[in-house]
């Protein structure tokens, strides 16, 4: 039915439809590319600081950590972090990380030193890149407020856990206080804690109390000062 010429005309039309289709797909892809959010494609870096009271050792430490985490799709950047921990009296400890192309971290330990009040963790995140040399990328910080609460042993519950009640020395009050005042790791039996007083270290981060047992000290015969 068709001559060779007709056939080639048909193939040409098909080719045209095919390239038109490809053009359409490309156009849609272009639209999607510009409309889809691309968090990971922007070369951001994430900087972070954190802190905790390390009661697993003696002496007890206030720990500060600074982290820089770069997205992979940057080129030639080098990062480092400086972290300092400062006590209420001004004692401090500081450290600097190794430089790294994508992830830098440094942990700093400061002896707690039985100080109460405001400890601060401060981190400075720096970088260098082919175009900008030695630039401070940003700062982060955590305020750690250390206070103490005093408890008296009052008995034992049905499960055998020792029970305690908050009881501060006259004229003092507790900033935090534990959420759960039973089973505190003091004494060997509950009977040994009845009528005895203990104080426990409270930790607040940026004003938010962490209501769990860090350390408890005792026993005393009288209520201890709270802060």
């Amino acid at each position, binding site marked *: 039915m068709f001559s060779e010429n007709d056939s080639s005309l048909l193939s040409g039309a098909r080719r*045209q*439809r095919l390239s*038109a289709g490809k*053009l*359409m797909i490309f*156009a*849609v892809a*272009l*639209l999607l590319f*510009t*409309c889809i959010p691309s*968090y*990971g*494609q*922007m*070369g951001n*870096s*994430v900087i*972070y600081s*954190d802190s*905790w009271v*390390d009661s*697993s*050792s003696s002496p007890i430490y206030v720990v500060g950590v600074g982290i820089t*985490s770069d*997205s992979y*799709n*940057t*080129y*030639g*950047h080098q990062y480092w972090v400086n972290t300092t921990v400062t006590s209420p009296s001004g004692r401090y*400890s500081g450290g*600097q990380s*190794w*430089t790294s192309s994508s*992830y830098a971290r440094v*942990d700093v*330990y400061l002896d707690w030193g039985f100080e109460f009040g405001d400890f601060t963790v401060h981190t400075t995140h*720096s*970088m*260098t890149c*082919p*175009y900008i*040399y030695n630039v401070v990328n*940003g*700062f*982060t*910080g*955590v*305020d750690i407020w250390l206070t103490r609460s005093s408890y008296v042993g009052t008995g034992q519950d049905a*499960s055998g*856990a020792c029970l305690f009640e908050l009881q501060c020395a006259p004229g003092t009050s507790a900033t935090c206080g534990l959420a759960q005042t*039973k089973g*505190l*790791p003091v004494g060997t039996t509950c009977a040994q804690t009845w009528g005895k007083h203990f104080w426990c270290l409270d930790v607040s981060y940026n004003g*938010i109390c*962490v209501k*769990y*047992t*860090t350390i408890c000290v005792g026993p005393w015969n009288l209520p201890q000062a709270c802060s």
Partner: protein
Amino acid sequence: MRIKVIGFFLLAIAVSIGVAGFRQSRTSVAVAENAQQAAPSQGQSQAEQDQPGTINGKEHPELIPDYVAYAMLFRVIANRPEESAQRSIRTYVKQIFQCSQCNNPPGASSDGDIDALLAVAEEHHRRISVLDTQAAKIKGRSWPEPAPEMLAKLTQLQAQNDALTADIASSLPAHLSGRGMENLQRYIVEHVKPAIKIVPGPQPPADSKYYQEPPPAGAAPPATHHHQP
């Protein structure tokens, strides 16, 4: 038909340019808003203002994606091979679940949650390390002018990294108690996200194509040391 397709193609380009322009203007607005927040926030000195375009989790925790917050948490608690560091990290994780040697009712957070979270973080570290290594190798190649395919590969790795973290974070409810998961989610929102800042990468000058030699002596990155007890 062909005219229609070409018309659509041109329209798509126009819309794309428009969207890009809109994005740019939104960035400019964000920068302007940041500039208006000139007063440093609490504990931040005048000299420590954030770079324009920085997302500060303390002011806008809702702008910090969950996977970014979980990635930071996993980074903090994983890969602590020394025994003393493991004990220290355990005290950190205890504060997430707010439980230390306490007698919990059934279903409450317990040391089981602590172990489970640490195990998940280690798994994250193990799998992310593979991507970290690949990225580090690529970053060191074809320096200082990376080939477009290298940047495309890095972008792909970053997408894998983000997806992996999101995937592992979404597996947490299967590993933690109900109360433990609640405590963790609260901790992410109240503690982790406010401590995060997302900082935009530096923009090279339009005419700067080549690597600039760093300044000579005296301006090199400071010597490093790692302070530990």
